């Protein structure tokens, strides 16, 4: 009995930090409609700040708590900078750009932390005065856990009072519903937004700081907590602080008890819990059906047209050039172009999902890595021949996409994006931790193609043919009835349902199709490098794909191919620097700030029209914004 109680209390204790982070995310999203992907980084910063401050402020109990508080405020100030310098300029940009910008912030913070604190895990200091142990039913219990248990509900109460008993709080709730209207009533929105962002960031920072005595500060915690926070938010219901608390407790308890029952299966348990809750209550425990945020805006709606004559000639020339390439360049360039082709297929599969389906996935690397691992596992454990493994890889990824997609298509907009990221992180964790099978961080080696295809030029041709065929298939599907039906669900789910389209089924099929194509790219990748590492499934890889799509322009069907080339070039330029993540992050943020209407969009606007790359739509170009139809 005592063991269970102690375990339960320990679960409550770990729920507090999670709740703080999740409530911060929820509050920020509610008002600014920005899902702050850098929220995990703020949590991580809180931990690092807390670590250094506790050391500098001496060992007293007062010093300890003051240090945590200052750490939280300091993270709030970082949030202030991020909001004022970056996000404030992007509130009117499509959501996708906001998300990408916050991803840039993640990269910058990662490298700054790495530069200042180093790569070592920093073990958290004990809390002075609370480092002892109490016995509850004869089971030892750290006193600090009791403090943590109290902090969660206290913060919850404080937030409730803030939002229900102060005018500022009422205005924040009003802005959550209709921020423009709040402005039109004479309230300074910018101040309100900044205030909310600082509050949310500080909560994340506090969460990271208070968990120090139980854990540590490390460089992996940003994505780790981010996925957990997303799960909490989806399970608890977006926008509900009570829901976040409930979900944080539920998930922490599941983790602590899960370890007793099934030590290696906590991730799977979390997965099952989330599944059950989403089936019973798609809006989460205490969530309300959302009216806004149903769709992730990726940019203005334009009429999609099949290829024009100039475009076809242009593509034919490119293909001819690529076919002759091995005669023209050396192996180094050939390997580089092979990489580009593989990534182009990967990016095109994501682009299909985003542009035709309106489904912005933040975890698409799960299927790229999934394909790579499917091929590698087949080769390693079943001695499958190269050709068969390459053929089966996409199906492995497709199976994974079927399972993940089945849950994700129940949600829409940013919720969909959050859930894809959470699932991708789960997939990554499984591969990372299940070292008996996947070899964990050391990866699977010796995944080479058959002898006939092992030459650089030969493999280049294999990749070229497979990637080109994949890209053409995707393009074909865009203009097939399936693609039209999918686009219909994106344009107007109301109308699509009214003309008998089963939206979820259409979206799930698209998700699986995109997963299969990403898996094909992953299979090609595994054999081109001869090895697979968990990195291929990680969140940064998912963002790479998003970045390629963004670089190429979301509206253009050929954009991802151009984007993959540009990305590979950019990556190769930056990777030579020690702090390349920092540079990449800065570049991403700068790109988004300079071209908030989309990069490819800007380029195509000036160049594409000139070259007539797509059938000229004349006056049919950009559709009037929806709003105006009712104005």
């Amino acid at each position, binding site marked *: 009995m005592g063991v269970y109680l102690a375990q339960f209390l320990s679960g409550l204790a770990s729920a507090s930090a999670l709740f703080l982070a999740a409530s911060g995310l929820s509050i920020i999203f509610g008002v600014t409609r920005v899902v702050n992907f850098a929220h995990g980084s703020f949590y991580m910063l809180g931990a690092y700040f807390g670590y250094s401050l506790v050391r500098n402020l001496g060992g007293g109990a007062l010093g300890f708590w003051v240090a945590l508080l200052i750490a939280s405020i300091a993270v709030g100030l970082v949030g202030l900078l991020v909001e004022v310098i970056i996000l404030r300029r992007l509130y009117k940009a499509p959501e996708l750009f906001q998300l990408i910008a916050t991803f840039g912030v993640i990269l910058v913070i990662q490298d700054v932390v790495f530069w200042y604190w180093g790569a070592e895990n920093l073990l958290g200091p004990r809390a002075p005065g609370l480092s002892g142990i109490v016995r509850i039913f004869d089971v030892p219990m750290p006193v600090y856990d009791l403090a943590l248990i109290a902090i969660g509900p206290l913060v919850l109460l404080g937030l409730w009072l803030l939002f229900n008993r102060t005018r500022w709080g009422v*205005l924040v*709730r009003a802005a959550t519903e209709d921020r*423009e209207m709040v402005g039109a*009533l*004479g*309230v300074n929105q910018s101040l309100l937004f900044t205030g909310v962002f600082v509050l949310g960031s500080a909560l994340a920072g506090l969460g990271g700081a208070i968990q120090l005595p139980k854990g540590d500060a490390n460089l992996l915690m940003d994505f780790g907590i981010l996925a957990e926070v997303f799960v909490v938010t989806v399970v608890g219901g977006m926008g509900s602080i009570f829901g976040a608390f409930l979900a944080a407790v539920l998930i922490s308890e599941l983790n602590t008890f899960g370890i007793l029952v099934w030590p290696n299966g906590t991730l799977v348990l979390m997965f099952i819990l989330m599944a059950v809750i989403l089936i019973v209550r798609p809006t989460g425990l205490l969530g309300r059906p959302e009216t806004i945020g149903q769709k992730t805006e990726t940019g*203005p709606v334009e009429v999609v047209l099949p290829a024009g004559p100039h475009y076809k000639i242009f593509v034919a020339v490119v293909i001819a050039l690529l076919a002759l390439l091995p005669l023209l360049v050396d192996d180094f360039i050939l390997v580089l172009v092979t990489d580009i082709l593989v990534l182009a297929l990967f990016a095109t599969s994501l682009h299909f999902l985003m542009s035709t389906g309106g489904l912005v996935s933040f975890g698409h690397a799960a299927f790229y890595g999934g394909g790579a691992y499917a091929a590698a596992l087949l080769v390693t454990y079943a001695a499958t021949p190269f050709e068969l493994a390459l053929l089966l890889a996409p199906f492995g990824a497709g199976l994974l996409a079927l399972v993940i997609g089945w849950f994700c298509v129940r949600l829409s907009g940013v919720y969909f994006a959050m859930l894809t990221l959470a699932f991708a992180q789960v997939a990554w964790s499984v591969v990372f931790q299940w070292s008996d099978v996947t070899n964990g961080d050391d990866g699977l080696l010796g995944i080479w193609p058959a002898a006939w295809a092992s030459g650089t030029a030969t493999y280049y041709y294999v990749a070229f043919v497979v990637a080109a065929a994949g890209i053409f298939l995707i393009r074909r599907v865009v203009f097939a009835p399936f693609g039209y039906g999918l686009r219909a669900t994106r344009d107007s789910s109301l109308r699509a349902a009214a003309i008998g389209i089963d939206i979820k089924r259409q979206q799930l099929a698209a998700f699986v199709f995109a997963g299969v194509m990403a898996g094909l790219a992953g299979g090609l990748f595994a054999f081109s490098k001869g090895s697979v590492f968990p990195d291929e499934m990680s969140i940064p890889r998912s963002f790479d794909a998003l970045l390629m799509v963004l670089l190429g322009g979301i509206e253009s069907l050929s954009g991802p191919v151009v984007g993959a080339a540009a990305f590979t070039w950019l990556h190769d330029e930056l990777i030579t620097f020690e702090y390349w993540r920092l540079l990449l992050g800065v570049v991403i943020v700068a790109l988004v700030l300079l071209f908030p209407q989309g990069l490819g969009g800007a380029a195509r606007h000036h160049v594409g029209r000139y070259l007539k790359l797509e059938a000229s739509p004349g006056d049919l170009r950009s559709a009037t*914004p929806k709003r105006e139809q009712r104005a």
Partner: protein
Amino acid sequence: MLEIRGIHSYYGQAHILTDVSLTLSKGEIVVLLGRNGAGKSTTIKSIMGMVRVTEGSIAYDGEEVLGEPANRIARRGLGYVPEERRIFTRLSVQENLDCGRQPAREGTRNWTADDMFDLFPNLAEARHRPGGTLSGGEQQMLTIARTLMGNPGCILLDEPSEGLAPVVVEQIIKVVKEIKAQGIPVLLSEQNLYFAGLVSDRAYVIETGHIRYEGSMRELEENDEVRQQYLAV
């Protein structure tokens, strides 16, 4: 009171208003008539700084407000009642009113929540209910009350009768007349000519972003040509 001269407004790349000018003087109700998409709401949103305006001038009380953000314009005393009401559905009626509250302003009446409950008895009964549970008519009352809480010196009322039952529209007419009786000028955007005719002193007719007609309401009612050509009566 309010003087708009030659404004051009855009939604993204779409040029919505072309050279729109209009004036609103103390104590009068002016209606902006036009069919859907003609630019009525865009005109009102342009005044409120909620739409990109590239040229022209918008003067309120003799001061230029063009280029200011919506909150600053609202602080000057321009009260905006949006089309589609846009009340805060999860906030109680009382909290909705609190959101509209602004400090007392010189020369305008200082309204309190109790004044609102006198003016709109329905809202008094519902003061602790979430706005989303109100009927369409009550929501329209609430959105007007919320704007009055800011003690406006001038009100922009966007399509208040849209989608409301005739019996509710008659109540709105009473409210608009009451506002006028308080000396607050109103710029009204409407499609319902009956409504417009019952409350307005002057009318502008807008079509595809151009002002096509300007005159007293009575003149417009007698001008069948304008009514047919631009209002498609």
